[in-house]
């Protein structure tokens, strides 16, 4: 066995030295290379994860805000259209009222003036009647005053008035 080891060049002292060598290298690399670099790498990974998480949160917030904005806009639009509708309705009513009032006034005015005109006409007519009666009586008096009695005179005036009334 030891012959075989010797032929293969195996020497336990050298072997041990190599093991120690490797152990020292392992220790130094672990302390100066792996630990700090892995720490930096893991920290960076964590940071990136956090940043992604945060940006996700921001996106969600943005979507929420967008939705809220949309909602508010819809509400506002609805309200404004309602207000406009109401205002239009009110304006229509006012116009209608004004129109109605104006109609009422003008009708009343027309009726009054018509009444006035009729009264005037009646008055004029009465005057014409009286005048006619006076005129007819005077004419009868003057022409056939001596011949006619009071009864005839009255009848002639009445006939003349009848004629006037019929011409009305």
């Amino acid at each position, binding site marked *: 066995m030891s012959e075989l080891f010797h032929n293969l060049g195996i*020497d336990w*002292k*050298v072997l041990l030295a190599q093991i120690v060598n490797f152990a020292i290298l392992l220790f130094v690399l672990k302390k100066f290379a*792996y630990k700090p670099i892995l720490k930096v790498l893991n920290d960076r990974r964590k940071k990136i994860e956090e940043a992604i998480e945060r940006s996700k949160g921001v996106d969600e917030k943005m979507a929420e805000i967008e939705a809220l904005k949309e909602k508010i806009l819809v509400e506002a639009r609805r309200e404004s259209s309602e207000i406009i509708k109401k205002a239009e309705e009110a304006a229509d009513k006012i116009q209608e009222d004004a129109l109605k009032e104006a109609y009422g006034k003008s009708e009343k005015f027309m009726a009054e003036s018509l009444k006035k005109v009729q009264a005037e006409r009646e008055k004029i007519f009465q005057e014409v009647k009286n005048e006619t009666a006076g005129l007819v009586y005077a004419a009868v008096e003057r022409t056939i005053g001596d011949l006619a009695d009071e009864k005839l005179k009255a009848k002639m005036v009445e006939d003349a008035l009848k004629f006037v009334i019929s011409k009305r």
Partner: protein
Amino acid sequence: MIEGVHISLSAEKILDVFGFPLTNTLLTSFLVVISLMVGAYVLGRKIKAIPAGIQNAAEFVIDGLLGFMTTIAGDRKTAEKFFPIVATIFIFVLFANWAGIIPGVGSIGFYEDGKTFVPFFRSVNSDLNMTLALALIAVTLSHFFGVAGLGAFKHAGKFFNFKNPIGFFVGILEFVSEFAKIISFSFRLFGNVFAGEVLLVIITFLVPVIAPVPFYGLEIFVGFIQALIFAVLTMMFLVVATKHH
């Protein structure tokens, strides 16, 4: 013609330091380890949250390796737990293999007794001491984590099962396979790197210029693949050893 090529299966001794044989592979291994440590120290001192320069490269390597190991371990937590061991194996084997291709390694040396050529540097993993050391570390650690993760009794139960005959034989197979693991681990790496060295020596001996270039490229690739295989297998053994059955 081939007599001019000297190939030694074992690493050559350069010096004898108080009975300790300083071989050329050990010397090369020292240099690789020291360079990696200095590199790690220089890098580790100025790690910043926002990477710049060499930190980018280091992060790329470590992150890539960790991602790859996560696919093997199944989850990132396990991968991170075993990462230092596996990554050190990968980085050390990789740089050791690549250092073996640097011009001067295997060609600068001296003549012992004025006859046999002894290079100062030799590819680290073309020495069974190194690969066996790595294999022992990997397998021992897998048992260590097995005991730590499952408890000594349960871990031993994988190999010594007296509940039923099938379990008993499976246990024996598992037990034997632990030794097979050590041998396959060490000889795979040793064989690949040593063969590469021999190939380069022979090609360079036959046609010194141009011809070795594609083989150098091949060795760079093989060096990477072997480092990756060693690291992946270690990871798998560690994961399997700590898993409940």
